[in-house]
């Protein structure tokens, strides 16, 4: 995944306007904007299985996914 995606990290408590824009309710939330449809993965991503499903990726090695964040 490295180099194949852009990840922007926003602190909603400091920038609530951005949270408003993306209609974020929960923290933390990982938003997959592309490819469409938009997916929101909420929570601390401890449930890796769900993260893979949410991002629609198949893990080749767990370390790659972590570096993607």
């Amino acid at each position, binding site marked *: 995944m490295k180099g194949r995606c852009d990840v922007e990290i926003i602190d909603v408590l400091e920038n*609530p306007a951005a949270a408003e824009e993306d209609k974020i309710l*929960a923290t933390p939330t990982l938003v997959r904007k592309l490819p469409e449809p938009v997916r929101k993965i909420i929570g601390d991503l401890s449930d890796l299985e769900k993260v893979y499903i949410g991002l629609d990726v198949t893990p080749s090695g767990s370390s790659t996914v972590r570096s993607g964040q």
Partner: protein
Amino acid sequence: MTTPKLLKKLETGIAGLDEIANGGLPHGRSTLIAGTAGSGKTVMALQFLYCGITDYDENGVLVTFEETPADMMANVASFGWNLEALVEAGKLAIVDAAPDPSEDIIEAGGHDLAALMARIERAVRKVGAQRVILDAVGALFPQFSDALLVRRELQRILAGLRLLGVTTIINLERTEDEGPVGRFGVEEFVADNVLLVRNRLDMEKRRRTIEILKFRGATHQKGEYPFTIDELDGVTVLPLSATSLQQSSSDLRHSSGVPELDEMCGGGIYRDSIILVSGATGTGKTLMVTEYVKAAITAGQRVLLIGAEESRDQLGRNAKAWGADFDKAEEDGLLKVICRYPEVMGLEDHLLQMKRDIREFKPTRIAVDSLSAFERVSSVKSFREFVIGITGFIKEQQITGLFTNTTSMLIGGESITETHISTITDSIILLRYVELFGEMRRGLTVLKMRGTWHEKEIREYVIDGNGMSIKGPFKGVHGILSGMPTYSFTTEAERMETMFNIERGSS
């Protein structure tokens, strides 16, 4: 020693609600409005927000969990509320927390709703809001798998709003009009102030009511009060039982239109009194109304006639036969005739509409023909409330009111209207058929007239081409009102003789 500080109230601006809430919602706290689907809680909350901005210069924040902001704005546009303009003017901020069906949400680990709180807080600070509504929080629960978490987070949001010093309304749906306050246990942590709105089916008509279940640390009126929602005013609560008897009264008298009746009443009817004319069909109630209207027009007074049984044309034609020109009086601006069948809407709406008509036309007198027609469309309870509401309002405005009541029985008898409003009216005039010697005659009596002497006799009256004329009292007959007259003529024996022509006088 200092006196304890009373909890401050915030006027909502919703007509009638502040009266039953003894001044408004508890200031700086959150109030839960719980109701079934279609009970009117969203309109009520939005009106709280809208009135705050337009009437009290208090900005607001709308947090929507259920409908999209665009839908909500479109829904209340029919009330003439332009929320979009308020947003543009920086007086209203919207936090859209409604689920977006095109988005997938996947839960992957622990989380909280700090982002939502941050968004609400930002909105409050952005417009300097003093009023916040959350509509409707129940929709938040299905979005997350952990209801406990949502409850805890909502509680935190409310605590945060309290710190911000805003007054909050939280809407919550109920599945039934009775039973538990709400779903998801929300009421457990916002139980300080609870309003219940209901939308019951009553005699095939919807009847909306609002009840203040509790205000912690503050007073309020108890029980259910009817309210209506219409395009002109949005929500109007009718605080009927809260109507206080504080009307002033006067010694001024008006003519009833029938000179003999004025005499029987000791010189006419009091200006701010309510008169009930009660009688069976065909006894001349509408004629009495016509005479009353005619007397007002002759005296140059404005008079409002509300017809519930006949059409405007019918009333006009009949009046013409008695020598009253309704068309001309309407042209002159002295008369306004409004004909509305009771069936067209609920009694609460009738009451609201009548009040509007009175405010608009500002009459000196009003006549309702007949009040008992409204009985048809309602339960006894809402009819009673309606009568109290309308009579209270008329008295407050110092208007003379004449109501008619149709009794179901030809002779004697009484009706719901009579039993329910006899204590409210100042005067009662009974029109009765009297069966005398195989003939139907008509009798009239002033049953009650507050604050003045009045004649107590039952007098005969006749209706002819000139209208109503009252003759002498029925002498020697009693039991007219019970419908079973008995004759006690001293000349009874003589009468018998003439009737049967038998020679008994010599015996």
